[in-house]
């Protein structure tokens, strides 16, 4: 039985001080409360476009025909 587990771990990343200063100015008056939250946001945005794509399992030929029949019955395919 587990009742309490470790808090989430964070790691430290170094960025140039001048860049950090520019970011701090940039986030003034925005919804970002810290340099870290802004950097996390930007990195998530970047990483979301470059994640490896995994091929989804394709239908077998037989299953594909069944699905097509079903979709034709609904009027979605000719």
């Amino acid at each position, binding site marked *: 039985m587990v009742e309490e587990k470790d808090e989430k771990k964070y790691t430290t990343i170094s960025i140039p001080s001048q860049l950090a200063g520019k970011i701090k100015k940039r986030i003034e008056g925005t919804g970002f409360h810290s340099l870290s939250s802004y950097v996390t946001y930007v990195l998530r*945005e970047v990483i979301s476009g470059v994640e490896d794509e995994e091929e989804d*399992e394709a239908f077998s030929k037989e299953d594909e025909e069944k699905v097509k029949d079903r*979709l034709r*019955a609904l009027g979605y395919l000719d």
Partner: protein
Amino acid sequence: MPRAHGSKLINRHLKKEPSDLKEIPTIEISTNLSEDVLNIANGVFSPLKGFLCYNDLDNVVKEKRLESDTPWTIPILLDFDNNDVKEGDTVLLVNKENGVRALLDVEDIYTYAKKTLSQEIYRTQDKEHPGVTNVNNMKQNFIGGKISLIDSKEREFDDYNLSPRETRFLFKEKGWKEIVAFQTRNPPHIGHEYVQKTALTFVDGIFINPIIGKKKAGDFRDDVILSSYRTLMKYYYLKERAVMSILRTSMKYAGPREAIHHAIMRKNFGCTHFIVGRDHAGVGNYYGPYDAHDIFSEFPDLGIIPIFFRSFSRCTKCGSVVNDKICPHDPKYHINFSGKKIREILRNGEVPSEDMMRKEVAETILKFDKPFVE
């Protein structure tokens, strides 16, 4: 078409029934939980492969993300009170109503503070909130672990119950690259049609995705919702541009968090855009009218584009349906689409004005002896 959420569309169907099922301890689960099992198995809840373990739940509650950092806002939990089950066991989950049988590998057994759960997910601990009531009614322990679906039985409306693999196949066959999803729990009025067609104008196709399942008295019945949409699509949509499929899941009334969850499910069906209206998935006054819009700014990596509608009404000056960005006229010229008013008119056996609802749609609804849940 977007990748499934978390990159891979999950498929947790067992190809062959295990031979030793009689020796495996059984846990009977509710119909709602069995819908979760089916949604996990079919990939609607990708990347989940099972019910949340503690670390994922804690991260979802505090960060709105799984431990892997993938956006996830609604806990998918299996509560139980069978003290004989231990971590490392395999148990058989059974629901008679849906004929669901699934294996669960018990990876984690834990408790979690219900007050924290309610406060973070529903932003309240008010017992009047239906989500809080559900949390309070949960058993004390939770089991986390992967599921594998053995089988389930056929049910009403299954023709219209397409899995994410099937909708993705359909969209490819139709040559659609950009697809907007519209979620609904009601028959369409003119305002809904306006929103859908406005969004459809900029993409290749629309995926109308009514939520089917447990409803409260006074709501439209599921068969009424489906029939009314079939009628609307027959008379007022290009068949090359619109498809409908149902989604069996319960409403959580978690407002902004649920809007993200709804968008994730539609991404898994292969949609690129998701329509979010005013007070999406809200109830009472627990959320601000546009909280469900604002929350999207926390998820630059969501992978589906929200299309926000603030309000829409019929403007008697413009002589058309308008929204707050396009009509300069005083609100006194605006007639709001009141679902309550439309229900009242239909309840009296009358056809609402064509400014409110298509005549063919209203007539379809009135063909039912009892269009409302009693």
